[in-house]
């Protein structure tokens, strides 16, 4: 397993760094090697005044900021036990070499203060390069919002995202949403949550069986499949209007919608006309559905988000389900996996990798231990992402391509977990009810 992880790091980290857009190069030259995480110190923010109302807000703020930076995939956070007992809250309280020298040896220092006054919460935060003694400040930010715990959490996500953008070159996932299916009300409904599992909220109230939620690239609509009136149909929920909006009813069973990354097309699986499941493509309005495949058990399409010119999907046309790829007009079908039970392809934002769920050696009597794998599409090299038991399915990439959210039974019931794309920083995000089929927003 360790060996796998090492191979993984060797293969995968350079891919991410070389193929992220040019503007995603590190903008800060710190003297560390490319790809090695920055060592960062994040002392708790200091209370700016003696207001008792500070306490619940600053506690949530500090926890959220730590979680975001620790799981960003860019930094190694030095444990708080190494920090001085008097932590700095303002620039004038900083002694840089305390943070740059052993035992802390941090390249980056994040610090600041929080205070409630007049019903508002005020936050000041800084990012310092500890080795730049002359101009250490990389970032200085100030926030003011109504003094609620939710706002304290939100400010922490926003500030963390500024740091990630500054040091990692592209926005992080800290202000994104994850949509998923939960049965905690007794029905399978669409729910949403923040990337760290906080702020879980019910989106639909249909009382039926909703499956396969897919957020539109502009965050305005959620497409999903629902069993209602004895028929599976693609349904559409507007997050702008907070209600269902119309989408055409088709014949047969209609499953697993997928958006093109420009938001103009929807691909889905349908048995309309043929009586067996095939991949269809239609306008985002549902107009003009057109069949692309003739495989009989074709499902789970996903666009190449970089080009929208290719679609990966699952087909059982030769027996056990395998991952296939085709051009978006249905031509040039290629089989990508050659054995086992391979489902749920998820195309990485940079278009280079497929994450999927795979039981390499599947058959009757073999316990269904599906794990997540990553395939480099060009070379078809495959690395294993999860190893820790249970059935792992429905990977979905964060917009920065550094994280994967997925469904796993490793805790006994299906729950939503997230993991860095190098297999580290595994986090359980849901615990109530059975939670499945996560889908990460595009931004």
């Amino acid at each position: 397993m360790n060996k796998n992880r090492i191979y993984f790091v060797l293969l995968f980290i350079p891919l991410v760094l070389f193929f992220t857009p040019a503007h995603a190069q590190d903008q800060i030259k710190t003297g560390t090697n490319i790809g090695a995480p920055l060592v960062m110190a994040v002392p708790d923010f200091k209370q700016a005044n003696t207001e008792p109302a500070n306490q619940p807000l600053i506690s949530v703020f500090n926890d959220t900021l730590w979680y975001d930076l620790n799981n960003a995939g860019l930094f190694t956070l030095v444990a708080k036990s190494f920090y001085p007992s008097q932590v700095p809250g303002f620039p004038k309280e900083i002694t840089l070499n305390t943070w740059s020298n052993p035992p802390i040896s941090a390249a980056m220092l994040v610090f600041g203060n929080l205070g409630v006054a007049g019903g508002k919460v005020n936050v000041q935060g800084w990012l310092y390069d500890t080795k730049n003694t002359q101009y250490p400040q990389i970032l200085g930010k100030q926030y003011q919002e109504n003094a609620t715990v939710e706002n304290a959490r939100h400010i922490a996500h926003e500030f963390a995202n500024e740091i990630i953008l500054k040091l990692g070159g592209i926005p992080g996932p800290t202000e994104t949403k994850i949509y998923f299916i939960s049965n905690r009300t007794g029905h399978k409904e669409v729910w949403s949550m923040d990337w760290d599992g906080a702020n879980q909220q019910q989106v639909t109230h249909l009382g039926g069986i909703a499956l396969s939620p897919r957020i539109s690239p502009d965050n305005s609509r959620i497409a999903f499949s629902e069993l209602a009136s004895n028929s599976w149909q693609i349904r559409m929920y507007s997050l702008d209007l907070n209600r269902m909006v119309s989408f055409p009813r088709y014949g047969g069973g209609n499953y697993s919608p997928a958006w093109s990354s420009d938001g103009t097309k929807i691909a889905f699986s349908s048995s309309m006309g043929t009586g067996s499941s095939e991949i269809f493509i239609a306008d985002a309005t549902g107009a003009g559905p057109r069949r692309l495949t003739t495989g009989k058990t074709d499902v789970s399409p996903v666009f190449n988000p970089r080009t929208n010119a290719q679609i990966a999907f699952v087909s059982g046309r030769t027996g056990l389900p395998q991952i296939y790829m085709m051009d978006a007009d249905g031509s040039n079908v290629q089989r990508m996996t050659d054995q086992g039970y391979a489902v749920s392809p998820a195309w990485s934002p940079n278009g280079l990798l497929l994450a999927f769920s795979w039981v390499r050696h599947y058959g009757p009597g073999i316990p269904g231990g599906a794990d997540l794998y990553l395939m480099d599409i060009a070379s078809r090299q495959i690395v294993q992402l999860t190893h820790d038991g249970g059935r792992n399915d429905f990977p979905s990439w964060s917009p920065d391509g550094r994280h994967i959210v997925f469904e796993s039974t490793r805790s006994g019931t299906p729950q939503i977990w997230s993991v860095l794309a190098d297999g580290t920083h595994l986090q359980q995000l849901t615990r109530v009810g059975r939670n499945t089929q996560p889908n990460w927003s595009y931004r």
Partner: protein
Amino acid sequence: MKNKHWALILAMLTILIVVSGCKKKQPPPPPPPPPKAPTATLSAEPTSIQPGQSATLTWSTENADDVALDGNKVNTSGSETVSPKETTTYHLTAKGPAGSTDATAQVTVSQPPPPPTPTPTPAPQLTDEQMFAQAAQDVYFDFDSANLRPDAVQTVANIAQAMKSHPNWKVQIEGNCDDRGSTEYNLALGERRAGSARQQLIQDGVSQDALKTISYGKEKPVCTDQNEACWQKNRRDHFTLLK
């Protein structure tokens, strides 16, 4: 000499006495034998009658001089015709010098069978649902397969038969999967399983207009244990009569 004569007489007398004393004695007259215990039997022929019919009681006794049937003195053996209105047990009491005994016999009076009804009650009418349920058993599939097994083909033939004699029936075929597979792929697999039964029904002469298919994937399991017996129960087509 005279002495010898006496001696002889004495000897002869002695012999005489001895001999007569040894003669077998006459046995005493035997005592009169003790009186024997009485016996009694009583039987009825026939033992079961209907009201208005009669039965014959027959009895015999031994060693009895006072015999009574239900308290009425009768001969020590004989017979009598009875015609009870209801089931009756007859008692025969036989008394003799050595005691008494009794015997019983029962004549059962059965109610007459109900007169044959003029029109026999018709067999209860089966509803369409009941008739459908008799024919439309679930059919089961192998792992990851949508092919009908031979037993499933037979079941589907039975369903086709029933559907052809009820042209108004509309049937929904519901494909289901076990819960090991992936949610979305299972919907497609269930679709195929429903399609297999649909194809066979059409081959067996059912109109395709009478058929609707739906896949429930793994959303509607009948069993949630994690073992093959349970998984097999879930890999099925279920048939529902649509109203």
